[in-house]
C-alpha cells in the first residue's frame, strides 16, 4: 500500500470559477522522492499546501500512512516543511529555531540537545549556532530551514521551491545536500519546483502539472524520452524540443516550408491511423551534423544557414530556420560553426516524437 495517496484531489477558491487543481491522483511510496514541476500558476504549490493542511481540500481525499487527512490539522499530519522564503523565526538563534518544535512537543531537554547537536553537525552549522537568521547567508538560512524540518523525525518532508532564492552555484551544492539527506534519512519527500533541472536530478518520479491538471507522472528519463504530450515534451529539456507542423502521407513527411523527409516504415505504420496533420518534435541533440550520420540517413539530409550560435563551454547551440520554425540544435563543443555558414544535417528518425495537432497528445 502506498504511503501517501491523493485521490481525485481538487481545489476551487471561493472567488474563482476555475479549479486551481483538478482531479489530482497520485500514490507515493514510502521513502520516495517526488517532484511536482510546472510553470507558475500550475497548481503545484497549492497541491503541496493541501497536503500540508494549509489549504482546504475542496474535492477528493488525502491519505497519509493509511489515515484520511482532509480534516486533520497541519501539526497532526506527521509532516515537516521547508518554505520558499525559509520562514525562520527572526528573533531566535539558529539553535532555538531548530529546537523550537521539539520544545513544543515537550521532548526531554537532554534529547533535544542530542538531536539539535546531530542536526547542527550534519548540516555544518556549528559556527552559526548562536547567530540569528539576519546574520546568515541565503545558503546558511536554507540549511537552518532544513535542520528545523529534519530534527522532528517526521515521516513526510514537504519542500516548496526551497532553492529558488539561492544563486546558481549554491543551488547546485544544496541540491546535492538535499539528495544526500533524503538518502540518509529515508524520508518520503515531496519537492515543488519550477526548475526542471532540480526535478530531473533529484526526484525518483516527477509529476508535471499545467493549469491544475497532471500532465504526466514518470521517472525522469521516461519523461524525457517518452513525453505523453507536447507540453511535457516542451517543458522538459533545455534547450526546448523543436516543434514543426508536418503533413504525413504514407512514408512521406512534408514540413510547412515544403521540405520533405522519408519516415522509417515502422514509424509510418504507427502514424497511419493518424494520417494527416501532425506535430513533429525533435530534441536539439537529435539533430546531427556529423558525416557519419549524414551518410547513414542521406535520403533525409537537409540544409540550412546558421542564424545564431550560443557557446555554452561544454557544448554549442546552433540556431537556424528550418521547416517553417526556428530550430535549435545542440552539438558538441568541437562542432564549431559561424553565423552565416550553410550546414547539412539530419534528424535521427528513431528520436522523432509525433503529437496530434488537436489534442497535442503523443502518438
Amino acid at each position: 500500500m502506498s504511503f501517501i495517496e491523493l485521490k481525485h484531489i481538487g481545489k476551487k477558491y471561493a472567488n474563482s470559477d476555475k479549479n486551481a487543481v483538478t482531479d489530482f491522483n497520485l500514490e507515493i511510496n514510502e521513502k520516495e522522492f517526488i517532484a511536482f514541476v510546472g510553470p507558475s500558476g500550475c497548481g503545484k504549490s497549492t497541491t503541496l499546501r493541501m497536503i500540508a493542511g494549509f489549504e482546504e481540500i475542496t474535492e477528493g481525499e488525502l491519505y497519509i500512512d493509511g489515515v484520511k487527512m482532509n480534516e486533520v490539522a497541519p501539526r497532526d499530519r506527521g509532516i515537516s516543511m521547508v518554505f520558499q522564503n525559509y520562514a525562520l523565526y527572526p528573533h531566535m538563534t539558529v539553535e532555538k529555531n531548530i529546537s523550537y518544535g521539539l520544545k513544543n512537543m515537550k521532548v526531554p531537554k537532554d534529547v533535544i540537545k542530542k538531536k539539535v547537536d546531530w542536526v547542527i553537525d550534519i548540516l555544518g552549522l556549528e559556527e552559526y549556532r548562536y547567530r540569528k537568521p539576519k546574520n546568515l547567508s541565503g545558503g546558511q538560512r536554507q540549511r537552518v530551514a532544513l535542520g528545523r524540518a529534519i530534527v522532528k523525525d517526521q515521516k513526510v518532508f514537504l519542500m516548496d521551491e526551497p532553492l529558488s532564492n539561492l544563486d546558481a552555484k549554491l543551488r547546485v551544492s544544496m541540491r546535492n545536500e538535499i539528495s544526500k539527506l533524503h538518502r540518509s534519512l529515508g524520508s518520503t519527500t515531496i519537492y515543488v519546483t519550477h526548475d526542471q533541472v532540480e526535478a530531473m536530478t533529484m526526484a525518483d518520479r516527477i509529476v508535471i502539472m499545467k493549469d491544475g491538471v497532471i500532465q504526466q507522472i514518470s521517472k525522469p528519463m521516461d519523461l524525457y524520452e517518452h513525453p505523453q504530450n507536447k507540453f511535457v515534451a516542451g517543458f522538459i529539456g533545455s534547450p526546448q524540443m523543436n516543434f514543426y507542423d508536418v503533413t504525413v502521407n504514407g512514408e512521406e513527411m512534408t514540413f510547412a516550408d515544403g521540405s520533405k523527409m522519408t519516415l522509417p516504415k515502422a514509424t509510418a505504420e504507427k502514424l497511419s491511423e493518424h494520417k494527416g496533420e501532425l506535430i513533429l518534435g525533435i530534441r536539439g541533440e537529435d539533430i546531427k551534423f556529423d558525416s557519419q550520420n549524414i551518410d547513414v540517413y542521406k535520403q533525409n539530409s537537409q540544409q540550412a544557414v546558421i542564424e545564431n550560435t550560443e557557446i555554452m563551454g561544454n557544448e554549442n547551440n546552433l540556431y537556424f530556420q528550418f521547416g517553417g520554425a526556428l530550430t535549435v540544435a545542440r552539438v558538441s563543443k568541437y562542432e564549431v560553426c559561424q553565423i552565416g555558414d550553410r550546414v547539412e544535417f539530419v534528424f535521427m528518425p528513431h528520436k522523432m516524437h509525433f503529437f496530434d495537432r488537436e489534442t497535442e497528445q503523443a502518438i
Partner: protein
Amino acid sequence: MLTKRKRISNWILVAVLIVLSLFFLFPVIWMLANSFKTDAQITADMNSAAAFIPPALTGSFLDNYISILTNTSFLRYMLNTLFYAAVLIVLGVIVNGLAGYALAKIKFPFRERWLLIIMLLMIVPMETIITIHFLFVAKLGLLNTVIGYILPMIVNPFNIFLFRQVFISLPDDIYEAAQLDYCSPVKYFFTMVLPMSKSVVATVSVFTFLNVWNDYLWPSLVFTSSDLLTAQIGLNAITSNENTTMGQTLAVITLITIPVIIIYSFFSKQIVEGVVSTGSKEG
C-alpha cells in the same frame, strides 16, 4: 568631500537649529533653575540672566524637592501613576495587539468594515466619550477604584490600528512554520508576533505611558480618594494650594516632567520607527 558652499550652509543650518532649540528650551531651563530657589531669590533674579542659572550648591539646594516629596503625597501620586501606566501598557499591548492581529491576519466576516469603524473611532475626541465611560463605570459601581480607572483606558483605536499596520506585513509562512512546530495560535502571538514587532510594542508602550502620565480629566472624574490619585491631579492640588511657594511649584513641575523626558530620550528611535512604519501619527 563637501564643497565650501555646502559646509557654510551646514553651519548656518546648525546655528539655526541651536537658536531654535534654545528658544524652546528657555522655559525648561528657567523652570529647572528656579526650582532650586526660594521665592525671594526667584523674584530677585526675575529680570536678569540669573533667572536661568541655578543657585549655588548649598545645604538648602534641594529644599523645594525635599519639601514636596516629604510634606505632600506627590511621591505616592507618582508611584500610583507609574503603576497604572505599567498595568495599562501590559493590558493595552495584549488587548490592542490581539485586536490588531485579528484585523491583520484572521479572515472573518466584515473585517474591512470593522477596521473602518475602528479608524473612524480614532477621530472621535476622548472628551466626547468620557461621559459614557463615566456612566458605564458608575453603573458597574467601580467609581473610585483602580479597575474603574483602568477598564475604559485599555482599548485604544489608534493602538489597534498601529498594531494592525505592522502585523499585516508579517510573513504568513512563519505562522505556517510555527503551526508545524506545534505552536498554538495564542503561543504564536506571544512568542512570535510580539517579539517580531518590538518597535511597535515599544511605540504603543510609550504612547500608553504618556497618555496615562499626562491624563488629567479621566482620573479626576473617577477618583475621589486621595490614595488613588495620579500625578497630574497631585500637581494641580499642590500648585493651587496657597501655601505652596513658587519654587515648590516649579519643583513639582520638574518632577512630573522628568519621566517624560527620560521616555522620549530613550525611546525616540522606536517612537519614530513605529510611527513611520504605520504611515500615521497620533492626534
